[in-house]
């Protein structure tokens, strides 16, 4: 069985470096992008099994725009998406409805996140496929 592919999209290079290392150790094939546009291009060519997406990149809602574009893509629309946000912890009044209709993602997680936790969440998503 071929290894599962994970696409990390985050403008924080440290975040990408660390989680890439942990995911690779866990047996995933990982590619990384540092912006939403690059990430969308990569998703269209690489067809990852799971996309890990940062909510707030250069533009404050970049992550949700990427998620929406993935959902609108006929090929990628069922690819599981994990959206990470530090906004919720940073601004407690900022609520994201964890509701499929509202945010087209599978899982919403708070940043920072322990690498082991992210690995476990991705394993769970892949096993459901």
């Amino acid at each position, binding site marked *: 069985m071929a290894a599962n592919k994970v696409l990390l999209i985050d403008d924080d290079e440290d975040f990408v*470096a*660390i989680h890439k*290392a942990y995911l690779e150790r866990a047996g995933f094939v990982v590619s990384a992008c540092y*912006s939403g546009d690059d990430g969308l291009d990569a998703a269209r060519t690489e067809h990852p099994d799971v996309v890990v997406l940062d909510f707030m990149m250069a*533009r404050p809602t970049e992550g949700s725009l990427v998620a929406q574009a993935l959902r609108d893509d006929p090929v990628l629309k069922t690819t599981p998406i994990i959206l990470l946000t*530090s906004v919720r*912890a940073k601004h407690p009044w900022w609520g994201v409805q964890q509701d499929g209709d509202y945010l087209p993602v599978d899982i919403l997680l708070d*940043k920072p996140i322990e690498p082991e936790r992210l690995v476990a969440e991705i394993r769970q998503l892949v096993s459901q496929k």
Partner: protein
Amino acid sequence: MDESFSVLVVDDERGMREGCRRILERHAALVDTAESGDEAVAKFARRHYDLALVDIRMPGMDGMETLDRLRALDPDAVAIMVTGYASLQTAIEATKRGAHDVLPKPFTPDQLLAKVFSAVERRQLTLEAKRLREERERRLLEIATEKSRLRTVINCMQDGVLVTNRDGDVVLSNPAATRLLLLDDSRLLEHNVADAARQAELVDMIEKVLREGDGVSMLAREIAVERENRVLMANVAPVRDENGERLGAVAVLRDITQLKELDRAKSQFVSMVSHELRAPLAVIEGYLGMVLGGMATDDPVEERLILSRSRARAQSLLTLIDDLLDISRIEAGQLAKRVETLDPAEICRDVLGLLRPQAAARGIVLREESAGDLPRIQADREDVVRVLTNLVSNAIKYNRDEGQVVVRSSIEGGYLRLDVVDTGLGIAAEDTSKIFDEFYRVKRRETREITGTGLGLAIAKRIVDSYNGVVKVASELGKGSTFSVFLPLGDIANMRNAIE
């Protein structure tokens, strides 16, 4: 008679006067005598006697007229009229005019004493009744004063007070209650609280106290006033009489909106700080995990990169903690300030000198321009250095390579004005209102590489605020920004006093 009593014997016959005196003095009476009505009136005007023994027939002013005059001087005067011509007619006439009794002549000592004792008793009862009446009047006056005083106190209170009887009808309320509960004054008094107040929670509390009062000593609950987004703390307790009988309920309402707001701002700040502390620590921990878990390759260059990035995060953490300590120092307020006379030009030179290497690394030129001789200012040197350092350091960080930063100082109105002008990225209009917020950082593609805690401008603003100064920003995207600080000239301590 146990107690001594005073008697004035009024008679034109000396024998009668002295006879009575002898008899009465034996029974502890203080006896005085007068040989005419005129003399009796004169004596009565000087002091009161418990009893007057008045002969009806006297030359000059007769007994009846004397009686009238005595009673005019002391309406409670008790008089026994003595007469040698006792008739029913005389007795009626005397009683009509206010005499207590009539004593016919001749009389025995016992007859005299019997009449006198009865009269004295009457006098004592009259005085006691008068004392009680006066006492009652004084009490009523006191109660009225106390009531009006209580009313005034309750009306002046900032907390709302609402009192109901046992049926829940409002019997007392103050203006604060009307204001806090957004009530119509005319709807309040005499109306049932359930009809008057729109706050169902408050009505519930009052009804619960009225219903189950015996088991309830006091209910406390926060209630929301929807229309004004206010939060009230309501305390409701039963009102009882001295026998513990429930008479009604009293509700005291305090507006705690501001407290809640402060509380929320505090938790929000704590939450933001925790997040800002956790983020770099998570990175450091992640990198350490990589090294220790053998996830880093054996490539010493990569390992070195990981360690140097961890170190950079650790340093940013230290800067953040320094900034937080600064904030707490500013919050400690005026007490912590070491105010001295400062030369603003010298501070500008110092700050620019310190930051020059950082600017030079990117080819940025730092310049200062001053509009002639500037007056000295009164401030804590550390504060002014901090404000200027934060602004100039931002002007360097957000500048383009080979750009420039100008610090311009001038006097405007009663203020020292410091402009920090850069040739950098500029700030979008929607961001200018937020950049002074704690932890707010402009996020754009171009700002990705710029490090910072998001506290620099917040600290600068807090410091400037603490001097009653102003900090403003004007900016154009792609061209640059100008941050202007206005610090009041003159003695801050005096200014503060003037304001307070």
